[in-house]
């Protein structure tokens, strides 16, 4: 083996080892943070964080959700119109929004809005020694800083996703019925038979995982920030990048898992719907 090749191999091996180190560090951080749940976080720490994660995200999530539905309607309408199936368009919009686009895009928006801000805030606290000050005052930073953020995201991101889904369905229906003049009665009649309770449940379970991933990754990045403005900036950027990637990876594996579970429970593909099929 030539010297250059050996060096390359060694460097690749180092990178793999570093990646495993980072994964191990993140896993430990997550486990230790979640373990602090044995002591309930105080309302004084939870309420401001819930306000920032939940209430202040409402406009962003609502607008994102509505435009997802509206854009879907515009993209899909011409194909359905050419097949003479314009009144069926609601099915595809609603199923796409509720099963995939709503949860994933709402989570992505929240990763940008909440995740980056959490990472930047905790990174600033780290580099200005506020985290050390907490430890000196006998307070566990994982319990005081990380746990409330994780709980807020896990509890509120599913609710925000419901809002995004609702706004997506509403936006799609407005474009179809008001702009493309699809008959509203047929639009809704054809739509409602295709949303399953299962789809709604999956659409609500996924954001719990997305919320946990966003908050844990962002807090981990923030708490392990390097010193200085550059360190804080990098923490915020990497929090978003890693959160976004984890959302997509989780979405894939969750979709796979829930499809298999659905197959296992209802092998004949019988479905529970809100209306006639």
């Amino acid at each position, binding site marked *: 083996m030539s010297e250059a090749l050996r060096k390359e191999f060694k460097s690749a091996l180092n990178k793999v080892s570093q990646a495993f180190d980072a994964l191990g560090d993140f896993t430990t951080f997550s486990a230790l943070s979640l373990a602090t749940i044995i002591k309930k976080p105080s309302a004084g720490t939870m309420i401001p964080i819930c306000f920032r994660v939940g209430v202040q995200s409402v406009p962003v999530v609502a607008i994102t959700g509505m435009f997802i539905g509206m854009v879907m309607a515009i993209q899909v309408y011409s194909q359905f119109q050419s097949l003479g199936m314009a009144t069926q368009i609601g099915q595809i919009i609603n199923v796409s929004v509720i099963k995939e686009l709503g949860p994933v895009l709402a989570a992505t928006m929240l990763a940008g809005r909440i995740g980056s801000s959490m990472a930047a805030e905790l990174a600033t606290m780290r580099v200005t020694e*506020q985290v*050390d000050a*907490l*430890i*000196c005052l006998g*307070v566990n930073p994982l319990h005081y800083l990380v746990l409330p953020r994780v709980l807020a995201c896990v509890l509120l991101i599913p609710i925000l996703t419901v809002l995004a889904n609702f706004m997506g369905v509403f936006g799609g229906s407005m474009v179809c019925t008001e702009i493309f003049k699809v008959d509203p009665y047929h639009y809704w009649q054809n739509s409602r038979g295709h949303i399953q309770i299962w789809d709604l449940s999956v659409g609500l379970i996924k954001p719990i995982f997305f919320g946990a991933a966003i908050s844990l990754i962002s807090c981990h990045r923030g708490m392990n920030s390097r010193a200085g403005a550059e360190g804080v900036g990098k923490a915020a950027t990497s929090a978003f990048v890693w959160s976004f990637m984890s959302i997509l990876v989780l979405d894939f594996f969750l979709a796979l898992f829930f499809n298999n579970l659905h197959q296992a429970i209802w092998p004949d593909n019988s479905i529970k719907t809100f209306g006639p099929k």
Partner: protein
Amino acid sequence: MDSSSSNPNFLSLQNAGMAFNGVDILRNINFNIPKGQTLVVIGESGCGKTVLLKLLISLLQASTGKVLFDGQDWCALDEQRTNEQRLRFGFLFQGAALFDSLTVFDNVAFGLRAHSKCDEKEIEKLVLMRVKEVGMKESVLGKKPAELSGGMKKRIGLARALILKPEVMLYDEPTSGLDPIMTDVINDLILQTRKNMPVTSIVVTHEMRTVHKVADRVIMFYPLSRLKPNEPQLIFDGTTDELFKTPDLRVQQFIHGEAKERTLESENHANRDEAS
């Protein structure tokens, strides 16, 4: 103040060393701090003074050797016991490290809310007392740290550190970035704190006025990068009078702020780099 006889090894470093990413910052440090003493730590930037403070309160674990507090090795303590012991310390950080999201009142009350059974009325009374003790007015309590000047932040940081009546106070460059008058105010507060409660103080500083005013004992560290492998890093340990009389050139250069030799050293390094 001679309570030192009661416990001469209240804080103790035994061959303690600290390295970051394989680079030694502190090496084989040995000294004891008796109870009640005010120890001032001086030395150039980057010689490990802040790291020393963080080792003393177990914010960092020594890479080698032992750090003992009240006879107990920090490494031998479990998490709960470590936390209990840490509450016997107060730490005034270099930038005060006030919690940005909380008001001054909440910052000072933080330790009480976390660890005492005081009701809000008692907390309010104690916070007010501490804030007045550090020479601040009541009107500052509703402000956020971002609205305070550097000196005000340091004083509020001190009030927060003192609220749980610590036995040991750690000051990390308490006067850095302050004007001469505010520097004197902070020095007076360090003295006043020692007078008001039986506290052992460790003050990290570059400020010679602080050394003059508050020190019972002074130690000086030298950066490892400029020492030979077997040279001790602790180059001075004595009283303030002894500090100013010591013949050690490195100490005298630091005290008098002489950069001439250092500039020559840097130029030699640059010339060598250029030549190579």
